[in-house]
């Protein structure tokens, strides 16, 4: 009996002693965006070329802090050993160790770096370093001017993870696959240091927030002075007026129960603007998790309620600042539709 419990104990502690499985951790946490072997997707590719230019420390820090506002979440729940296991797994693709960079700051002058950045970098990285055009990662089915969208250089996650020496090195080498030229023959060492100093001053664009009145609330909710049927018609009309295409409405419980017991006083009016949607899916293909847009009309306790998700809040879930901005715009449109329908 005693032996049995010792045996059991030692069996239980096995997973604790074994080194974390980097492949399993990568596939569970990273492959959805970076693909199985770093081919890229919503996330940037982690190609042999890119990996040969970045240090283990940069990868580990990137995992820890993520990229606030640029889709990649921070992985706070992973232990140091797990993060190291993921880094080792990523390195195993090429079998080559990563470069190591000095962590000391380069002596650069951002004032001298500014015009150089504007001359050599802005056309691809944007004035503020956000990158050119919407979206991140590889292009897949999306139309882009680059094969690979550059990471946001102004992102606090990038800034915290990348050392001066690493950025310096990337500028000198360029990135062939992504289409970034080498600046070896165009800039001196000191000029690159100046550019790096300027990159350090770049800030992400300020974030707009949704209307204060609705902040922190899961949904916009308005009471209609009209009866149920009239309210449904009003919402449809207001949506059409706002240039949305309307799908056949559904009962909220439809498909969850049989047609006899379904509550017919809860209707979802589903709508879409395909042109806008296509644009948005380019910014973030995960958007389907909150689609389609819908406004619910619900009758309860003699009241008729018009309800929509708080799209400004919902958009922030994606950790994608571009999408958050769209959420704020959508909020205005949806609230005006709801107001018109209940006026």
């Amino acid at each position: 009996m005693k032996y049995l419990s010792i045996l059991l104990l030692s069996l239980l502690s096995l997973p604790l002693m074994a080194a974390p499985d980097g492949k399993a951790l990568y596939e569970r946490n990273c492959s959805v965006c970076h693909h199985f072997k770093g081919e890229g997707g919503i996330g940037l590719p982690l190609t042999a070329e890119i990996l040969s230019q970045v240090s283990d420390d940069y990868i580990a820090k990137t995992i820890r802090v993520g990229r606030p506002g640029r889709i990649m979440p921070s992985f706070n729940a992973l232990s140091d050993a797990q993060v190291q296991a993921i880094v080792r797994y990523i390195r195993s693709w090429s079998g080559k160790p990563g470069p190591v960079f000095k962590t000391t700051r380069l002596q650069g002058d951002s004032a001298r770096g500014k015009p150089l950045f504007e001359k050599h970098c802005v056309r691809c990285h944007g004035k503020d370093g956000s990158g050119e055009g919407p979206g991140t990662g590889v292009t897949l089915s999306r139309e882009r001017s680059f094969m690979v969208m550059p990471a946001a250089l102004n992102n606090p996650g990038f800034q915290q993870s990348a050392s001066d020496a690493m950025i310096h090195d990337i500028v000198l080498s360029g990135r062939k696959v992504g289409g970034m030229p080498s600046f070896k023959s165009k800039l001196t060492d000191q000029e690159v240091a100046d550019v790096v100093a300027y990159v350090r001053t770049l800030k992400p664009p300020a974030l707009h927030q949704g209307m204060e009145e609705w902040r922190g609330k899961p949904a916009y909710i308005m009471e209609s002075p009209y009866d149920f049927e009239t309210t449904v018609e009003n919402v449809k009309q207001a949506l059409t007026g706002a240039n949305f295409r309307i799908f056949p409405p559904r009962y909220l419980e439809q498909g969850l129960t049989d047609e006899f017991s379904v509550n017919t006083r809860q209707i979802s009016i589903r709508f879409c603007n395909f042109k806008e949607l296509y644009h948005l899916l380019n910014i973030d293909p995960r958007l389907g998790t909150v689609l389609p847009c819908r406004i619910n009309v619900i009758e309860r306790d003699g009241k008729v309620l018009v309800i929509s998700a708080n799209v400004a809040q919902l958009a922030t879930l994606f950790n994608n600042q571009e999408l958050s901005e769209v959420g704020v715009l959508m909020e205005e449109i949806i609230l005006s539709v709801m107001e018109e329908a209940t006026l």
Partner: protein
Amino acid sequence: MRKLLAILLIVGVGFASASERNLVMVRSPARAAHVMDVLKETILEYGYQVAHTQRCDGGMAEFHYKSDFYRVVFFGKVKEVREVLKRHPEMSPYLPLKIAVVAEKDATVLAAVDPRALAPMFPDDAELHVLLARWYNDIDAMLEELRELKKAP
């Protein structure tokens, strides 16, 4: 100090912090059409009803926009939906639950909002928090099963 705390509290209202993981997502090596079939079976196995499937790619093609396979599957348990809506009609935009299925070449990405992200907006309803956590566990477990599908030969 108290003022600072108040400000922090106000800012803190709403969804959990933006850079945390608020979406449940996986990449499955199998093709989207197959993943769709298995997903629907899996949803039933976990005791939910599939309410319907929305095709997003079809609608866009009609408007001459090209896109890959893109579906959204709606699912839920009518009893749970009713109980929640009785207390919180403002939960109606999030019900039934849904999972998006998107093709990326030969692989498939699945994504859902983590229901727990809604919890901070219902600070006084502990029962709802438990339910949101259960929904998360089920969605996470279902997506894990799909992630482990094999690549089509």
